């Protein structure tokens, strides 16, 4: 039964089919099951979920606590299920779910500005004026598109100033943005009922044909019609249900937490089940120049339930083996606590959690200096190395060179995979 809440009941799938006949993608309309969740082993493609911590979380109040030291502040640490791994005590739920995940405590970057740092951390390339680099998610679907999806393949949820972009690979690889996940995916519903929508599409056809006259080839190149067709396909696709969390049991929704981020993580799990491979969920608000400790508590209350529920759910559904989860922000924060009880930007020596998708689990890489005097951590890990690791794990040749618009050959990543994780 067709009962999506997003779709106007007045405009049904069958109506659309009628109009879509002859359009380039109509052959895809008959529903065949693509759900990743129903596939097993190599048949199932791997997905990547990036939990993006916008603003730069403090490593000391997350995955690299130094309790009882001058730099550690008032925070405490707790043990996790991973032997030898302690994290901040603000994450009790996560501590129980980290089995199989790894922590890198020695990420190093050279970008201490939010914008530049974000671009570097999302793409694996330091930003430069003449090239817009593609984000990890865009590279994945460029190299390994899932053509049977009727919904976007690259999705960014939650509010962010710098969503993942397609960069020089093309605007069509920009992440599809869902500002308010679990509630509204925006612009999916036709403004009028089905008979009028049909009339509108017929009208459009007449006007488009007139324009095509004498410009057949040029108009085809614009992809205007195929973009509209794909949008219409999406509007009527049953795969849109992946965005709906009303059908999830109350207990599940509650476990993820009633925040945009919590809902986003739940939708992310549903999208992975559907077969979406590149997902970003944003949690901003980590820029703690003042009141670092209370600020991190507020953030932890959103991150802890959502992140832990996501891992728990993925494991329970046997999806973690095929899903890489990466939790990272643009940089860390200074060991020094400033007079406003805050911490400032610190691109040298920050932490991330990564795992799943067949990566080696329960690994702890590097450490920062507990006195805070030594700037560089041990075993420093470059951003690009992390991306090379992920791409290699997805069986994407990260060394493959593409030609950028200015004719420069660029590798998908110029890093080297981190041996400890593969």
């Amino acid at each position, binding site marked *: 039964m067709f009962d999506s809440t997003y779709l106007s009941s007045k405009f049904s799938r069958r109506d659309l089919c009628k109009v879509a006949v002859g359009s380039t993608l109509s052959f895809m309309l008959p529903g065949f099951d693509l759900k990743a969740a129903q596939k097993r082993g190599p048949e199932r493609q791997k997905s990547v979920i990036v939990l993006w911590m916008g603003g730069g979380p403090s490593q000391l109040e997350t995955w690299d606590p130094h309790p009882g030291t001058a730099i550690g502040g008032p925070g405490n640490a707790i043990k996790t299920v991973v032997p030898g791994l302690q994290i901040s005590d603000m994450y009790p739920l996560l501590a129980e779910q980290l089995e199989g995940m790894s922590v890198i405590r020695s990420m190093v970057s050279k970008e*201490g*500005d939010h*914008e*530049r740092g974000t671009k570097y951390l999302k793409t694996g390339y330091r930003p*430069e*004026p*003449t090239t*817009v680099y593609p984000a990890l998610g865009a590279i994945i679907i460029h190299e390994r598109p899932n053509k049977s999806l009727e919904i*976007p393949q690259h999705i960014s949820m939650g509010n962010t100033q710098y969503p993942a972009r397609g960069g020089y690979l*093309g*605007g*069509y690889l*920009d992440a*599809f*943005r869902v500002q308010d996940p679990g509630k509204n995916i*925006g*612009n*999916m*519903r*036709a*403004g*009028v009922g089905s008979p*009028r929508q049909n*009339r*509108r599409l017929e*009208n*459009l056809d*007449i*006007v*488009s*044909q*007139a*324009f095509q*006259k*004498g*410009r*057949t*080839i*040029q*108009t085809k*190149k*614009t*992809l*205007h*019609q195929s*973009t*509209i067709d*794909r*949008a219409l396909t*999406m*509007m009527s696709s049953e795969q849109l249900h992946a965005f709906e969390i009303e059908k999830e049991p109350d207990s599940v929704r509650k476990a993820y937490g009633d925040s945009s981020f919590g809902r986003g993580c739940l939708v992310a799990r549903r999208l992975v089940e559907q077969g979406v491979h590149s997902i970003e969920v944003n949690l901003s608000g980590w820029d703690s120049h003042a009141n670092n400790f209370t600020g991190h508590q507020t953030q932890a209350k959103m991150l802890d339930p959502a992140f832990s529920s996501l891992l728990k759910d993925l494991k329970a559904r046997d999806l973690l083996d095929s899903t890489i989860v990466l939790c990272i922000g643009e940089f860390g924060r200074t060991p020094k606590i400033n007079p406003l009880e805050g911490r400032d*930007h610190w691109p040298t020596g920050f932490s991330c959690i990564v795992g799943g998708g067949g990566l080696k689990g329960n690994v702890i890489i590097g450490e920062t200096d507990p006195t805070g005097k030594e700037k560089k951590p041990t075993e420093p890990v470059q951003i690009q190395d992390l991306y090379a690791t992920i791409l290699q794990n997805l069986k994407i040749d990260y060394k493959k060179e593409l030609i950028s*618009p*200015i004719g*420069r050959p660029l590798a998908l990543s110029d890093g080297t995979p981190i041996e400890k994780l593969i």
Partner: protein
Amino acid sequence: MKPSSHNWKIACIPFCVVGLVVSLVAWASSSPVAISPKAPALTVDNSMTSTVEQVDQFFEKQWAKQQTTPADISDDYLLLRRLSLALHGTIPSLEELREFEAMQGADRIQRWTQKLLEDRRFADYFSERFTRAYVGVEQGQFIIFRRDRFKAWLSEQIQANTPYDELVRTLISAEGLWTGDPETNFITSASADGNLDRNKLTGSTVRAFLGQRIDCAQCHDHPFDHWKQSDFEGLTAFYGQVEIQVLGVRQNEELKYEVEDRETLKKRTVSPQVPFLNECLPEEGTLREKLATWVTHPQNRRFERAAANRFWGLVFGVPYFDPVDDLPAPTDLSESDPDVLDILGQDFRENGYDIKRMIQTIVASKPFRLSSTSQTDDNEQIERATDAWALFPLVRLRPEQIIGSMLQASSLKTIDQNSNLFMRGRRFFSELDFVREYGDLGSDELNDFPGTIPQALLRMNGEFARDNGSASMLNSVGRVSQLDISDKKRVETCFLVCLTRLPTNLERDHFLKQYQSATNPKQREKITEDLFWALYNSPEFSWNH
């Protein structure tokens, strides 16, 4: 008595507030300029006509050599659409179309161009485009970078027709506070994290004003160009004495420009030097003044060619050489014929670097007037014709142009600085929202990417599309439905308002049939809404052609 008189005073407060608001709105919505400029008498001189002829001859020679037949000349309506989109970022209003129709004379397109160039909308629109080229689209660090002020300053310069070389010199050498002297934001835009990134300044100076990309040379010798790392460092040294202080952008003669050697990690001082045309570097002035003079020196042909290429790109949507800031080195004109950029550049230089004149020359030239339809369906021929500018290119409109056009199409009257505050406010906020949701191409705006699904969804189902496309007393959809005109005229009006053209016979018949089946005004309204919806979503609406 007393309490009641008190109450009376309280009761007055809302009225006072209403009165205040009304008078404020009345004040704000009064026209900031007296009247919209009327089409001026033409001031095209012979030298400009001769430059246009030279440009045309260049192309005709090329077409003859390649055996390419140029497309037909477009009709005036289409030229009007192209001109408005290029110079104001919107389509022309019905009001403007009618005004144009009333004009007489063979030179009316030229006179119309002049009118558009004098209109404030030109300066405002072009200042945004220039701002993108000079400092990018990012808002940057608010405390020391004010993009809005910078843009407003540029708009003033364009409106006053400040010579382009003077404008560029000011940008490179300006001093002062970014708020009071907004031109200094060119310098402060390169500031990140409390540090001034001088390398970024060099990169953007050379890209924006000389049409060359030497950014790669920042770290190594350019792989396939002749730029050396020492060229980059030498140029950057000209920015070595600029610093950002509490009092703004200042020269500090004490500063030495040092770089860290990548091999030895030792610091070494770099002295300012230019990679070519050393003789154009003046003796006098601060380092930045010297650099500014060198960049804009009449003998530095890269400067005028870069400007010509950028203006060409802004007018056509595609630069003559693509990408816009990666031009080939100028050829020796004693050995080879000048190309289009040389012709336009020379005219620019000899006529006081007059921005408006250069634009008038470009739009008067033949390539701008050619149709985008061709007789052939042969891909190769079409590509060849497009490459040779024998066919007007199909270019995707920028988000601002699309929203600007949707807003304009929803009003029969021209939306400009003379519109009331409500209209202008609506335009301002709709534009912000729409552009944010539509996704901005950023500084790569002249690159050619196809539209995206979210954009199609936004145009079809977005809140703005819904509001704009629903008939009301105030918008064109409602007005056209209610006007006491024949249905034929009604269909024609819709097409003129949205696409700046009359419908084809097939289109006219299709929509006439719909109107004829309407039995009451409400139905007519719905038919008009559906017609507008189709026009808004047609490729013709969102592509320049």
